[in-house]
């Protein structure tokens, strides 16, 4: 029996006989799915600039930046926004300074750089990006975080944006501090139909006072590297409340956000983790316990991360959290959380046990087998459209200096992809998923979305001091899928926070529309469900306003736009 036939046999067996044996049987077999880096032919050839290429003096130069898949022109095709940084030592000529870039999808696999025309060409130490229609005008806006003042790009609906950060009161500028803003997310935390904004903070960084490598000296495996973050004062996160008039108010103190001691916040996840209909906020913190702000339904939050079991590793230790995502990977009706960490550690997989308690199942699930990668971007995506969320991890060492030693997996690292075996376990299938996964890069933020609208989820990766990767998923599988674009009316227009249940037979998947996530990045706001061989599904939407809406998919392998009933 040839391998193709054997695979087909295994797949059909899995569908016919239930899922319990599929993982074991499929283990070790190649998958007819591969990811191919098409960035260059797509027109994404500009390098992201971020600190020194060979050596870094400050930690600020190491952490890199995010990426976004966002349909800014509402044409149904995902456009791309790539955050850019700069260099301390560089003296760029006017017009040559690196800027964040916006690329319009040409609907033929290529993109056009529309940065200048769109008015989003800003230089500086860009960090993260998140999107949401904060003024409910039907056009997705962008918030871009920086070390220093952030930008709120209001989408004017004509292909241009206007930076409203200062006017809206979300620049994060303070008289005394220069905040190192990182992950962000639009979230309607009070469910008033208007998107509020959460911004994580790493440290309050001042190069004049920050320790330099030789002042320690700070060493990693005997190599002098940038110092921190342990030993530096962690930053405080900010929550902005949307006033409904184009401005925001900093409610961090009132909302209880400032009660959490200074942390080194990076990835942000806004998600209803306790199924109470109110969004909670999880922050992956570097080198300390993570934060989980539980929504108290009254405009305040309580940090419950430690007692919930989602702050530390399985053995109760602090980790260097970077990126974060959630999905109901075991389809039990509760959102679980994946978090990337430093090299020498494993990725965390917090299984939601209900009642806001979690158990790190990294080892039992099969994620403990990889410790040599340093993870950044993270996402649950169903790359094989079988209806079970898989895990995609984007890696790269933090210190460019390690490239000299060949330590661990080096500075540039490949991706890691785990396939969901449908029994609580995952299988590392990275080596069978093609050159896009195998190529070693200095990966940081990554976003997920089907940029070519061919029915499988692609990945956009921002790399440090290298061009980005656009990993097109080429699947030979014939599994079905459905995609939903939600438009809120009573709820916020982007439908951020809306939860969708997708039922095929006894199998129920669950997703939420989410702003921010992964590592400082923004994935497609539309929801993509793999359906396996199911030819239809029933959909139930739980809107942030509290209303519920049911519909049948009808034909599959298409996108459905659903507007919230008034």
């Amino acid at each position: 029996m040839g391998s193709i036939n054997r695979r087909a046999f295994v797949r059909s067996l899995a569908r016919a006989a239930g899922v319990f044996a599929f993982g074991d049987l499929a283990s070790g077999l190649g998958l007819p799915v591969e990811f191919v880096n098409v960035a260059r032919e797509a027109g994404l050839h500009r390098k992201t600039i971020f600190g020194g290429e060979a050596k870094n003096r400050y930690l600020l130069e190491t952490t890199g930046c995010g990426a976004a898949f966002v349909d800014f022109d509402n044409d149904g095709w995902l456009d791309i926004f790539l955050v850019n940084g700069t260099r301390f030592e560089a003296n760029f000529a006017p017009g040559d300074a690196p800027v964040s870039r916006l690329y319009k999808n040409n609907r033929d696999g290529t993109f056009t750089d529309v940065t200048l025309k769109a008015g989003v060409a800003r230089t500086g130490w860009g960090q993260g990006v998140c999107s949401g229609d904060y003024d409910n005008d039907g056009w997705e806006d962008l918030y871009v975080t920086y070390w220093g003042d952030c930008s709120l790009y209001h989408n004017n609906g004509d292909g241009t944006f206007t930076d409203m950060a200062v006017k809206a009161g979300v620049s994060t500028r303070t008289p005394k501090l220069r905040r190192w803003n990182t992950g962000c997310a639009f979230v309607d935390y009070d469910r008033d139909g208007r998107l509020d904004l959460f911004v994580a903070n790493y440290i309050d960084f001042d190069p004049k006072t920050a320790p330099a490598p030789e002042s320690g000296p700070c060493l990693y495996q005997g190599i002098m590297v940038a110092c921190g973050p342990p030993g530096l004062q962690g930053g405080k996160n900010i929550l902005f409340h949307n006033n409904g008039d184009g401005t925001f108010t900093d409610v961090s103190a009132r909302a209880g956000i400032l009660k959490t001691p200074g942390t080194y916040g990076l990835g942000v996840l806004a998600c209803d983790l306790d199924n109470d209909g109110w969004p909670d906020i999880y922050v992956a913190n570097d080198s300390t316990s993570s934060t989980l702000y539980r929504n108290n339904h009254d405009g305040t939050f309580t940090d419950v991360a430690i007692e919930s079991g989602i702050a530390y590793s399985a053995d109760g230790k602090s980790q260097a959290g970077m990126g974060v995502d959630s999905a109901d990977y075991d389809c039990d009706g509760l959102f679980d959380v994946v978090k990337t960490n430093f090299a020498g550690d494993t990725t965390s997989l917090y299984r939601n046990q209900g009642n806001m308690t979690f158990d790190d199942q990294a080892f039992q699930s099969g994620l403990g087998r990889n410790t040599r990668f340093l993870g950044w971007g993270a996402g649950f995506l169903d790359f094989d459209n079988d209806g079970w969320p898989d895990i995609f991890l984007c890696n790269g060492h933090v210190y460019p200096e390690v490239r000299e030693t060949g330590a661990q997996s080096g500075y540039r690292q490949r991706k890691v992809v785990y396939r969901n075996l449908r029994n609580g376990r995952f299988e590392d299938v990275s080596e069978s998923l093609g050159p896009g996964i195998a190529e070693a890069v200095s990966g940081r933020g990554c976003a997920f979305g089907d940029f070519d609208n061919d029915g499988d989820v692609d990945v956009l990766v921002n790399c440090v001091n290298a061009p980005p990767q656009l990993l097109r998923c080429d699947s030979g599988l014939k599994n079905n899928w459905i995609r939903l674009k939600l438009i809120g009316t009573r709820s916020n227009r982007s439908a951020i926070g809306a939860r969708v249940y997708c039922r095929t037979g006894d199998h129920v998947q669950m997703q939420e529309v989410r702003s921010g996530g992964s590592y400082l990045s923004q994935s497609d706001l539309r929801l993509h469900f793999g359906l396996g061989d199911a030819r239809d599904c029933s959909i139930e939407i739980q809107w942030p306003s509290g209303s519920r809406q049911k519909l049948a998919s009808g034909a599959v392998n298409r996108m459905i736009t659903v507007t919230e009933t008034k």
Partner: protein
Amino acid sequence: MRGVTALILVLASPLVAQTESDAQALVRSGKVEEALSAYNALAKEFPQSARYEDEIGFLLAASKRTSEALAHFVRAESIEPSYAPAFYHEGVALWLNHDRQRALEVLRKAVSLSPSTAEYRWRLGSALLETGQYRSAAVELAEAAKLNPQNGAVWQALGMADQQMQDFAAARDAYARALEFDPANLSLRNSYGFMLVNTREADAGIAQFERILRERPDDTAAQVNIGFAYLQKGELDRAVAQFTRVLEAQPGLAVAHYDLGLALKQKDDLGKAADEMRRALEIDPRMVEAHYTLGIIKWQSGDVEQTIAEMRAATEASPDYAQAWYMLGTALKQKHDLEGAAAALRRAIELDGSDPGPYNTLALILRQRGDEKGSRDAFAKAAEIKRVAEQHQAELLKQGPARGLH
């Protein structure tokens, strides 16, 4: 004072001085019995001389007539309770007679009577080192080194004490001083190189090992340590190659199997890593670290049962192995044996309360068992330990000592 008077009398008498001089000459020429006779004669003449009693005791002890010797030391001490050499010699005799507890007491007495005698502190420090009292040993040996910096053996012993206390920088410096006096001591050079590796000077460590191998090409310790240096540098492929080479020549070397297993584990080659750990245990079943590391490998592989089995083996072989108790507790929690997990974690905390990890895990277990107060207390303790550690790190960064922060 009586002793002092006796000594003055002895020195005052030319005849006595001659007799004593003869006795010392007999000692030097190895004629112990004749020397004993001479000192016995002196002791008879001067029954209140602690020194003569001590000399007799010393000669008897040297002749392995320990019980007779001890009686003379005791007599010397009763004659002159502040006569430190008697206590010192008695301590040494007791040590040689395997009465370690009493030996330590008497050696301490000698040091207290004569705190500026380097030799007493050296011997006391060495005895403490031998009995696993590393902190006290390091104090005595450091003092001995200060009193007599020209004794290479003191520096070596101090290095060993510091190494045992995991103060690798201090151990490195002590071994470096010891090497100044004994540069041909390859074992000492190995220790020095090993400490260099442990203080993130892997390349300097490798240079030491290579120097050893130039003189003694089959020095297994140096060969293994080169591999260990590669491990510390994160150069895993070179580490694997080095350990593999060592094992080709000496397949029965448990430590090389263990180190090879460690390198393979760091490469995430868990199957082969487990094989090497098992091989190390076959060769040396007492290697508790191999049980522990094999347990961690099994943990990484998702095999909770086997993790528990290995951690149990580690804690049975070494009941004070805090990390193994900690990991046993963690694994038992995953198996939902909350009672067993709590007991193991409490034992880990008892042995080493400086790690917030076991407190956090214990707190989660107590919460699951409905003990809210216990849970809060454990979380609070963990938070306090974490806060202090973070504060310490901040101070280190401000002060600027060599530290790798990740």
